[in-house]
């Protein structure tokens, strides 16, 4: 027993020393400014450890696959709470305290907040040539001022899930335009006194935002040295007026989506449709399993007079960001790129239900061609065709503000008030614009408005 402890201690010292040497070697490699650092793969004899924080279920499988195929880099996954529920606060605190992970799961909508908090590492020199691998609008979410800070992982392009069996029974076609959608909503109310086409989810900021995103004009942009806030714009007002009419006519429910009440309504057929993200298929399948085979997915309804098909993405999507203070930016980038573009990894993540892949070429992704758990639920339809088209039709000019948490809180509070009858939805968006201008100013940022 006596000799065992010293031996372990000795081993620990050796391990620490080799790790330190490896670290020095990695730094040395970086200083040499060889083009080879693009493909940083580390030294298998003394692997570099990359810390990774994520909340995506089953992402460990992808991490294991990376570790198995990259002996020079060892990725350590720590599962954290989802970003908006405290994960981001933890990351930002980690950056401040100097113990942040090298790579972290950060939503597209939160990347600007991270940037303003000085929490992102510039990885242009390692990832600059990867742009062509990814869908353009998704790639652009991690690029600020021409510099790359994050590798896109997945998005949530929107589609219309609907109960095809009931639509057929009532003689309703899948709505192609928003006018069709309103007409279908009215017909459904007449055909079944308990059924609604959908709920108006005032609780769901990303949903409200995606409806506005699809309508056209964006909410945030940069102009010279200032943020330009244009929430209260003609396109968004059109969306607000449309849904206000739906609310006034009692054509939609007003309960929260993804709540117990909503799940129950999906099960009983009291709610027969949902404009949701591509990952929503798992939510419907998981919560209303007995309705299997009865659903179908149609493209999101279009605004009359639109010159081309447009969709939107639920809260943008999610990326792997390299955080400030990392000592292994090259290795971290290698991992982030592999995780989000290697077919093996994308397949794993897709089956974990993480969203729509960010890579352009999805022909190697087996689950997108044929999926025996998903397609039968939708009567054999290849629903991924709908979402592939939708993802390609997301506006690449949409920008998130550096205060998206405040935006979410403000828009849900205001939309909830409108549903309660305090003002209209048009007022709700105008009030949200006012709140965002104040938020940005309070941070000391330059702000202008438009509409």
């Amino acid at each position, binding site marked *: 027993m006596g000799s065992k402890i010293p031996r372990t201690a000795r081993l620990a010292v050796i391990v620490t020393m080799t790790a330190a040497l490896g670290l020095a070697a990695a730094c040395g490699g970086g200083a040499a400014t060889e083009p080879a650092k693009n493909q940083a793969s580390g030294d298998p004899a003394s692997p570099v450890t990359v810390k990774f924080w994520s909340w995506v279920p089953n992402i460990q499988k992808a991490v294991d696959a990376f570790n198995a195929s990259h002996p020079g880099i060892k990725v350590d996954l720590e599962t954290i709470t989802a970003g908006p*529920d405290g994960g981001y606060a933890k990351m*930002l605190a980690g950056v401040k305290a100097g113990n942040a992970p090298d790579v972290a799961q950060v939503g597209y909508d939160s990347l600007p907040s991270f940037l303003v908090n000085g929490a992102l590492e510039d990885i242009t020199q390692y990832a600059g040539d990867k742009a062509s691998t990814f869908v353009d609008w998704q790639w652009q979410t991690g690029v600020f001022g021409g510099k790359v800070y994050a590798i896109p992982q997945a998005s949530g392009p929107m589609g219309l899930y609907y109960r095809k069996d009931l639509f057929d029974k009532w003689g309703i076609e899948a709505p192609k335009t928003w006018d069709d959608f309103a007409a279908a909503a009215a017909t459904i109310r007449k055909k079944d006194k308990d059924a609604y086409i959908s709920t108006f989810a005032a609780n769901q900021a990303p949903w409200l935002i995606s409806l506005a995103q699809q309508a056209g004009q964006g909410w945030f942009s940069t102009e010279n040295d200032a943020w330009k806030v244009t929430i209260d714009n003609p396109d968004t007002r059109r969306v607000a007026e449309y849904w206000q009419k739906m609310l006034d006519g009692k054509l939609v429910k007003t309960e929260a989506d993804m*709540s117990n009440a909503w799940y129950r309504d999906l099960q009983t057929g009291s709610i027969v449709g949902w404009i949701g993200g591509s990952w929503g298929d798992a939510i419907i399948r998981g919560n209303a399993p007995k309705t299997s085979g009865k659903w179908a997915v149609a493209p999101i309804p279009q605004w009359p007079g639109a010159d081309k098909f447009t969709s939107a993405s639920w809260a943008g999507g999610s990326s792997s960001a390299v955080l400030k203070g990392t000592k292994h930016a090259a290795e971290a980038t290698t991992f982030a790129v592999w995780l989000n573009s290697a077919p093996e990894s994308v397949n794993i993540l897709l089956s974990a239900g993480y969203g729509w892949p960010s890579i352009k070429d999805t022909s190697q992704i087996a689950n997108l061609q044929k999926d025996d758990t998903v397609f039968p639920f939708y009567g054999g339809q290849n629903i991924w065709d709908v979402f592939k088209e939708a993802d390609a039709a997301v506006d690449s000019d949409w920008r998130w503000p*550096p205060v998206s948490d405040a935006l979410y809180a403000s828009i849900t*509070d205001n939309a909830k008030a409108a549903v*309660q009858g305090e003002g209209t939805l048009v007022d709700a968006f105008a009030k949200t614009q006012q709140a965002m201008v104040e938020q940005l100013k309070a941070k000391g940022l330059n702000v202008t408005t438009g509409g």
Partner: protein
Amino acid sequence: MAGVLQRETPKAGAEAVGHARPRHPRRSRSHVAVFVAPFFVVFALFFLAPIGYAVYQSFFKLTSSGLGLTEPTLDFAGLDNYTAALTSPAFLGSIGRVLLFSLIEVPVMVVCALTLALLLDSARARFRAFFRVSFFLPYGVPGVIASLLWGFLYVPQTSPLVDALALVGLPHDFLGPGTILLAIANISTWQFAGYNMLVLIAGLQAIPQELYEAARVDGATEIRIAWHVKIPLVRAPLVLITVFTLIGTLQLFVEPLVLKPLTTAISSDYTPNLAAYNQAFAQSNIHLASAEATLIAIMSFVISFGFLRLVNRKGKRAW
């Protein structure tokens, strides 16, 4: 009379100790220090230090410039965060809301707890132990679980209660803007009335039986005994549970947080605590959150000590 005598003894004892103190050798003080030190160390580390740090944080703010592409700076902000909190209609609204909530909840709670305690303490009560445990049981349910449980009973799609009320034509919207505060009051009363009842029962059991006998000899009914003997003698525990309930209602947090996803009537700054939580964890503004938390603490402090002053005036010291 024995009980009355007992009540006097602590005061006499304290005086005796007070007189005796100077005669104790100095060495005993170091003994005292050794025994109380662990408490003060932990108290300072986990209570005073975090509070001090929060107050300190509340005087700073992060400032960016231009587009914010450069790292923000941490600047001394003086009372800016306090001004921001106190001029924010949402935060002021949340304070107004909990004050209204206190106004409803405190009397309801005290009356409920007192009624239950008096019923269990009355001479005719049966199965006391069983009812005492049953009334106390909800206190053992964690607040989050209690809120989830009632949440299911409030949501029309999952609630047998709503169906039943609708059937007999009674109002059944628990989650509307006008009723949500009452729905929350119901949860906290359900949860804490049993606990407060126990506090009162302990007080009632300390009342000497002789007083009841004397009252009965004078021809008093159970109700008159309750009103003229029991209630005046549990004044101290009554004040105690009132203060507990006041503090609890001013710091309302768990119930609205859990019910928030179920209703459009609860906003992200529905109560002051929820507003501070939202600033700290959703909007990453720990400086404003610290200022709001400090204001909540000051408010609870002023109101509960104000109440104690009020009831303790004219030398009628409750506790």
